[in-house]
């Protein structure tokens, strides 16, 4: 009287479905285009994907695209480099020194939630209306998440590795360089991911003031002129930049964290 076993497992495992992914992407664009083409809504309210693509193509052909991209990328890179270098150093101090942490952490927690966009008028007063204030805005926005990521990265280095190094009489500076820094790298890279996307967001705010060129400036101008196609073309650019940055960080992770 034997019976086959009843199956009760399965489910709750998500497998990649590349076809669904592609279909979904295509479907969204297709429906959007259909709605826009049908003419139920004015193109000002809802520009069509085709219109946006046209705006992008125009920008690329006229050479404006590169000009805007170059201007924005320069600001982002400079601001990111300055902000993340400072954040890294500060985060390391927070992570390694009791007094630095006690003194620094409350200050960081108090300053972190401040929207940098609110400080723009001050930044302009301090750094002028040119590049420095834009770079400073981005750098400040990058500084805090980087400091926090580094500090919690240091915190997450397994204590046992530090004990091991000490048990082999490895000098303190070498413990920092060979154990703590590589061990904090996963945390630091996830900080890079966050702060890179913050830099992208802040470039729009930073270019609100006195920028002739830049993706942010382009978007703002388009917004002011109610050119929604241009606006969304600019937004697409930012989205592509964001995906590219994410991709680069993933690449760095695969390279630098191959040991995981």
């Amino acid at each position, binding site marked *: *009287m*034997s*019976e*086959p*076993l*009843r*199956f*009760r*497992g399965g489910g709750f495992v998500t497998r990649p479905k590349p076809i669904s992914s592609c279909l979904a992407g295509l479907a969204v664009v297709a429906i959007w285009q259909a709605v826009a083409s049908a003419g139920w809504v004015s193109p000002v309210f809802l520009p069509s994907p085709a219109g946006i693509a046209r705006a992008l193509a125009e920008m690329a052909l006229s050479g404006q695209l590169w000009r805007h991209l170059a201007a924005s990328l320069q600001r982002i890179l400079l601001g990111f480099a300055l902000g993340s270098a400072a954040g890294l150093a500060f985060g390391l101090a927070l992570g390694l020194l009791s007094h630095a942490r006690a003194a620094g952490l409350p200050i960081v927690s108090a300053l972190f939630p401040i929207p940098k966009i609110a400080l723009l008028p001050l930044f302009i007063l301090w750094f002028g209306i040119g590049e420095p204030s834009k770079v400073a805005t981005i750098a400040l926005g990058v500084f805090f998440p980087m400091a926090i990521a580094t500090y919690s990265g240091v915190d997450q280095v397994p204590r046992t590795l530090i004990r091991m190094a000490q048990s082999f009489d490895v000098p303190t500076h070498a413990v920092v360089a060979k154990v703590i820094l590589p061990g904090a790298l996963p945390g630091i890279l996830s900080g890079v991911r966050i702060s890179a996307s913050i830099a992208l967001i802040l470039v729009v705010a930073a270019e609100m003031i006195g920028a002739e060129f830049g993706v942010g400036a382009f978007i703002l101008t388009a917004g002011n002129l109610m050119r929604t196609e241009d606006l969304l073309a600019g937004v697409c650019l930012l989205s592509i930049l964001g995906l590219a940055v994410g991709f680069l960080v993933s690449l760095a992770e695969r390279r630098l964290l191959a040991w995981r």
Partner: protein
Amino acid sequence: MRLIVERVSHGYGALEVLDDISLTVEEGEILAIIGPSGCGKSTLLGILGGLLKPSKGRVLTDGSAPEGSLNPITYIFQDFALLPWRSVAGNVAFALEHRRLGAREREARIDEVLAKIGLRDFASALPRQLSGGMRQRVGIARALAVRPAILLLDEPLSALDAQTREILIEEFLALWLAHRTTAVYVTHNLDEALRLADRVCVLSRRPGRIREMVAVDVGRQDRTPARLAPLRERLWRSIQDEARAADREYV
């Protein structure tokens, strides 16, 4: 209840894990399964419990579950698998919810198994407040609460330290002697297998095949280290080469 495995093979994608396994777990016996790391012991146990569909072959049950059994085939897990947000009593209750069981009877069952396993004073403790041994006792209590016909144990003691293991193995044996529930006991530990099992099934390296089926022909009351030594020696010779090879594999 008996469990009949008929020519079961299983693979994950291209990785062949189990190859043509046939065996029968007899009513009331403890069958130990040993084998090197990664040979497919957990996979086999998953198939026995209906959580995995074998790529080939089938598993049958034979006979009826005992009176009041809510979940004829029940697991005890290596990592305990307790819901960390539920108390000890809540974790046992989890197995009894979604059953046709009055609140009164549920409470009674929980109380009964907690008492049986010496957990009563800990009924409202959270898992994180307990030692490893106590956590696995909760796992055992939860399994007993559904009155299983067959227990599937996947290295239930391997996450515990040696002394706690010693204590729990005695407790488990005492419990088993009282219920004599059919059980499949996966372990790496020869001593554990020899102290508990009626038969020991030795699997080869991946893809796991049955290499040997060894009956432990020493009465449970006579299983001193000295009495078990020859059998242990024989089993160890049977598996040590493969264990060595598995140990030196890239993972």
